């Protein structure tokens, strides 16, 4: 696979950052966008724009078809059984709020328990916390082990007879741990527990197969998958999406509206209230095609090589401490440097054109557990090379120099 060729498809890499080439190692935060996606947005607004599903004129019909085409592309990409299991949201955060909120309305009772893990992103904790406040449900935390991993045993240990939902990340945005979702789902379903997956970090990096994973819900961020901002996807098993109540109310999600009663649309409209992110949905079809054209197997292989290379490099660098050494790791390299705060590292790296993230990465529980308030995180995408990681390492050494460390 020719990465330099692929990189050329991303216009941003023509830009200079502080007079340096951009080394973008912040894809776990949001990925850059290939030209095909940007062009599609441009083309749609310039030549085809109309609102979806609400008018019978030419542009509207065309836009509606394009919009629904993306739904089918997503269905195929994640191997969902039915296109109506795909709901477009404004982001993964909204997707997770939708699940927590509607399960809270119809399924969870006072005293019921939701099991999350210590490595969850705030987006997969705060929505459940809302139910803790409003419905008195309980939240339990499956522990991470010292490798920053959550093995199946730790999930099993934390289950009780009142556990009704397991809500977990597929791939940790800090330790990079890939959790054994299939096994967790098997275990959960054998006890009648619903499984909600935060797939934000896995979706850009792993082959997705909903029917194989068999989880009940799966949340995706399109902007981390070479797609536009302001778009996410909720996969939900049809039986759940049919059974649960709607989340937001408004135009497009109703069947019959009277002064004293309202009935709701069938799927998928039921969960898509109001004017949706039409242009973004339509452009996301190109993001999927872009990934498919390269091939997810090749993407996985390339990124595996990068992460292994990066791990090795940073392990050799004394005073760098890698966070997490999970059995299966993907996408991210989080670390601390003895004597230099992550924000200072990020600032110094930025001067060299290297974009990483510093902070708690929306995982305060995890950082508390590690006994630190912040970490530095380099994360990779399809456009990164080993050279980028060499530059990262060199720039870390520059930090040490500036801070008078050896």
């Amino acid at each position, binding site marked *: 696979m020719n990465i330099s060729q692929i990189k050329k498809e991303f216009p941003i890499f023509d830009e200079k950052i502080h007079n340096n080439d951009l080394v973008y190692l912040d894809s776990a935060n949001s990925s850059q966008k290939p030209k095909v996606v940007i062009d599609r947005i441009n083309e749609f607004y310039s030549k085809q724009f109309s609102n979806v*599903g*609400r008018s019978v004129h030419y542009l*509207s019909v065309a836009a*509606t078809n394009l919009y629904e085409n993306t739904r089918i592309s997503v269905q195929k990409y994640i191997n969902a059984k039915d296109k109506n299991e795909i709901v477009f949201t404004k982001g993964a955060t909204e997707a997770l709020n939708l699940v927590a909120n509607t399960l809270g309305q119809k399924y969870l009772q006072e005293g019921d328990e939701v099991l999350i893990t210590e490595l969850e992103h705030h987006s997969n904790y705060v929505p459940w916390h809302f139910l803790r406040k409003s419905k008195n449900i309980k939240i339990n935390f499956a522990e991470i082990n010292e490798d920053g991993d959550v093995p199946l045993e730790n999930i099993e240990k934390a289950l009780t007879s009142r556990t009704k939902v397991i809500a977990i990340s597929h791939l940790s945005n800090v330790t990079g741990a890939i959790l054994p979702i299939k096994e967790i789902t098997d275990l959960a379903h054998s006890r009648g527990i619903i499984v909600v997956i935060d797939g934000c970090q896995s979706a850009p990096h792993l082959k997705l197969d909903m029917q194989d994973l068999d989880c009940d819900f799966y949340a995706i961020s399109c902007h981390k998958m070479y797609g536009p901002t302001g778009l996410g996807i909720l996969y939900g098993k049809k039986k759940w999406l049919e059974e649960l109540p709607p989340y937001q109310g408004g135009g497009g999600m109703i*069947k*019959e509206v009277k002064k004293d009663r309202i009935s709701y*649309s069938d799927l998928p409209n039921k969960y898509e209230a109001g004017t949706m992110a039409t242009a973004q949905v339509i452009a996301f079809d190109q993001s999927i095609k872009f990934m498919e054209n390269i091939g997810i197997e090749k993407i996985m292989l390339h990124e595996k090589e990068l992460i292994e290379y990066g791990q090795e490099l940073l392990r050799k660098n004394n005073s760098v401490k890698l966070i997490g050494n999970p059995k299966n790791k993907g996408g991210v390299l989080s670390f601390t440097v003895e004597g230099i705060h992550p924000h200072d590292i990020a600032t110094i790296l930025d001067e060299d054109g290297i974009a990483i993230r510093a902070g708690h990465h929306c995982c305060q529980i995890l950082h508390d557990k590690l006994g630190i308030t912040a970490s530095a995180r380099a994360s990779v995408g399809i456009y990164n090379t080993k050279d980028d990681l060499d530059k990262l390492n060199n720039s870390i050494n520059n930090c040490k120099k500036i801070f008078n460390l050896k």
Partner: protein
Amino acid sequence: MNLKELYQEIILEHGKNPKNLGKTENFNKEAKGNNPLCGDNVHVYLKLNDKKNVEDISFEGSGCAISMASASIMTDLIKGKNLIEAKEIIEDFLGMIKENPELHSKNLTDDEKTKLMCLSGVKQYPMRVKCATLSWHTLVSAFENKKAEVNTEN
């Protein structure tokens, strides 16, 4: 021009003065259908006798010329047919609207075929296909006496 094909005289006539409009007496099966985005709705009533013959059929509802004409023609053709024949006609119609240029049903006379073919112009108006098919989908539901409303948004 396509519009002429869509709005043939016979469609306009059926649209304006639909046959079998109203609630037939003694119906034993029924179903409702609606198209939430445009507000079209239809209610199909039918009387299926012991021999599985459609003794009577009628509909209530409001909608565009296409949907009214389609319901009118449908009830006209289905009346008197038995269940198996009716299902073949339905399948034939839905196939025609979707892709097939021709009708295959042996249960229709040439005259009846001509009537049904009038609706084939809709094929070129994807957004209007659901206007034409709503009553037919609702009829399928009525045969099954389904509770859930038919919804042509999917």
